[in-house]
């Protein structure tokens, strides 16, 4: 086994780790706010639940990047051997999702908490309340896209 695999696995682990940690923080924060709203009005449960889940997607994207990296480098069966350069390329490819996933999940949670407050006061404005945190997610999606395309690109290299 060469250092290349180590670098690639490090990238995969970081993307699952950082993005997952970000989502955990985010969903936790939003969950606290949501629980507060439900004490006042239990009928808002389904609405605040959706808002709570919004910062949860980064963790999924992180998992996704980790998984396609793992399958591509042959950790999940197949031969796990590659050059150091290629391993580092995989590492770099995972970074956008790892870093942006962490930060955007936390920032999205802040918007989600504010939106949960909005829904508590004006339940009929749910549509707008949902869009505000979703704007933050755009950047996580862009990072996801760059990571996916990079990994596919790297694996196509010799």
């Amino acid at each position, binding site marked *: 086994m060469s250092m290349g695999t180590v670098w690639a696995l490090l990238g995969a682990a970081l993307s699952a780790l950082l993005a997952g940690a970000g989502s955990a923080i985010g969903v936790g924060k939003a969950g606290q706010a949501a629980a507060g709203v439900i004490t006042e009005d239990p009928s808002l449960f389904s609405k605040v639940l959706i808002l709570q889940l919004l910062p949860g997607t980064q963790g999924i994207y992180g998992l*996704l990047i980790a998984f*396609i990296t793992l399958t591509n480098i042959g950790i999940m069966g197949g031969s796990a051997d590659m050059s150091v350069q290629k391993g580092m390329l995989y590492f770099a490819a995972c970074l956008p999702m790892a870093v942006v996933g962490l930060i955007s999940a936390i920032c999205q949670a802040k918007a989600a908490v504010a939106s949960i407050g909005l829904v508590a006061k004006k339940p009929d404005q749910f549509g707008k309340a*949902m*869009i505000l945190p*979703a704007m933050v997610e755009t950047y996580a*999606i862009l990072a996801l896209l760059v990571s996916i395309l990079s990994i596919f690109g790297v694996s196509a290299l010799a």
Partner: protein
Amino acid sequence: MAVMPMKRMTIIAMRRDRKQLLEFLQRQGTAEIDTDTEEDGRYKKIDVSAQKQIFEKNIHSMEDALEVLERFDPQKKGLLSSLEGRKTLTVEEFGRALTKRDEVLETVSCINSLYREYAQSLAAVPKAQMDKEALYPWKDFDLPLDFTGTRLTTSFIGTLTGRTNLEEIYVCLGELCDFSDQVDVRIISADDTSTAVMFTTLRTHERELSEVLHRMNFTKAPSQSRAVEDGVSLAPAKAIERIDAQMQRASARRQQLVSEIKGYGDRRDDIRLIIDYFRMRSDKYDVIGKLNQSDHVVIIHGYVPEADYSKLSRALEARFDLACEFADPAPDEDVPVKLRNNAFASPVEGVVKSYSLPGKGEIDPSMPVSLFYYIFFGLMLSDAAYGIIIATVCGVLLKKFKNMEEGMKRTFQMFFYCGIATTVVGFIFGSFFGDVVSSVAQTFFNVPKDAAARLLPPIWFNPLDDPIKMLTFCFAVGLIHLFTGLGILMYQDIKNGKPRDAVYDGLFWYMFVGGCVVLLLCLPMITGMLGLTFTLGAGVKKISSIVAIIGFTGIVLFAGRDSKNWGKRLAKGLYGAYGITSYLSDVLSYSRLLALGLATSVISSVFNTMAGMVGGAMPLVAGVIMYALIFVIGHILNLAINALGAYVHTNRLQYVEFFGKFYNGGGREFTPFEEKTKYYKVKEEI
């Protein structure tokens, strides 16, 4: 696809008819009634708060009664009972049911007073319990606790703190007084916290002993009202028996109360109906209080959709002595907005509404929104099996609960169409529970990987194999979406008699953006990057650059046309042309279609692979079971999280990218005076 045209309604009616008239309008639910008209000298508003209060009080006590019934005689409710919708009654049925009103109110007060008695009886239980516990140390004592002695002797009955015995007590007495040999001490019971004792001595020592006992921290036994019967004190054991008997009687009474309350369980529907009746009346009085009326005449202003007014006017004139007039609203009036669409587009009216209803001069965007909504949702969820699940669930619910409330129905209809789109997209891109077909074939049928992958081939291509192709496709779809928005803007301008604006704000942008796009496609670098195989000739390049330049010039010249000063105007125009960057970011935003689509299929295959690894390593039966288990849990999770993502981001693409091009909203919702009831609705055909 339309905003329904409205008519301005004015009704002048006899005051004596006002209640029947409003009831009729309420049942029809087609007219919005103005409630902020101003009083003038002759026409005044009347105060109805007293009546309203009575209705509210009645509603309140009836709801209490329903809660009580629900507590003691819970009704089995299906998981989906909230989808059933309100039951419809005819006016005659409703009228017949109303004759039971007073009887129902009586029943309600009966239920409430039964419950009050029950609650009071229950509240007395802990007190009785405490009394009983206080008597326990004395239960073997044969005298009443308030016994104070005979003619010659005096007795003190009470407790000393802590566990103690005769020896200690006598030692203590000896220390504190000199007549301890003339005191009889009898210990009745003792536990760790206290000792129950009776001291008896001669009358002559009464005062001294009392003082001594005080210093020994002696507490007199509680004198208990429950231990008295017909003025005679009972011995503790008797008193305990008596409390037990009382408690038993109370508990029997409570049981009787419960069964009596349960006996009213079948009156629930009647109570619900009368609640609705009072709610309607309360709403009606709300409106009455806001109408201008003189001694004999009442005036009602409001709006009615054009489609309903002739029928309504005929029905009104046939039923009442009144004059009604329906006129076209003045151009500057704040006319309420009601949308009407065909079955395909109406489900997304809610999506439009939660952004904002169309403002003045704007068209109802529901039709284009619906088309793109379903497509985008499909592209983001992009799994045939998930689509089939969503469409089937929604379809079955819609079929089973025909009487579903309107809002709920539309949501299900929307997801039904979304599900169909998802199914189609899933087959086009070859995703059915991710790659379950190939995964099962490999795990259980030992099909080699390559052959397994060919079992369910995509109709077009698999985005996992060629993500760039999919990305290009998403950008193209996005561009169509944006251009549709621009087209609606032009249509609106032309419809509002501003064809020049249509050219300046619409056509020039088409030329500029469209020209730039074609120009970009002429560059080999771009086509290479996007994986396109065609090459455009030099002629196309020339034409597209000319078109783009015309568009650009037009924007620079006219985007700042509000300014009189040409320098300022050109500066504004240049800034307007800079808006091309927003087109760039808008188009890039559609990459989420690819990203979320990939997310669904990759996570599906993660679960399939996990299931395959676990299931393949076991003997066949156990393997199948484990495979199924991981498969079901994993896919439920994936479906939930990705359906949420698809829903949120479809909304975002509509609200931000699409509506940003043409739609401001700001319309006021049409809120007809109707039956805002909870359980029943009354229908009257006209």
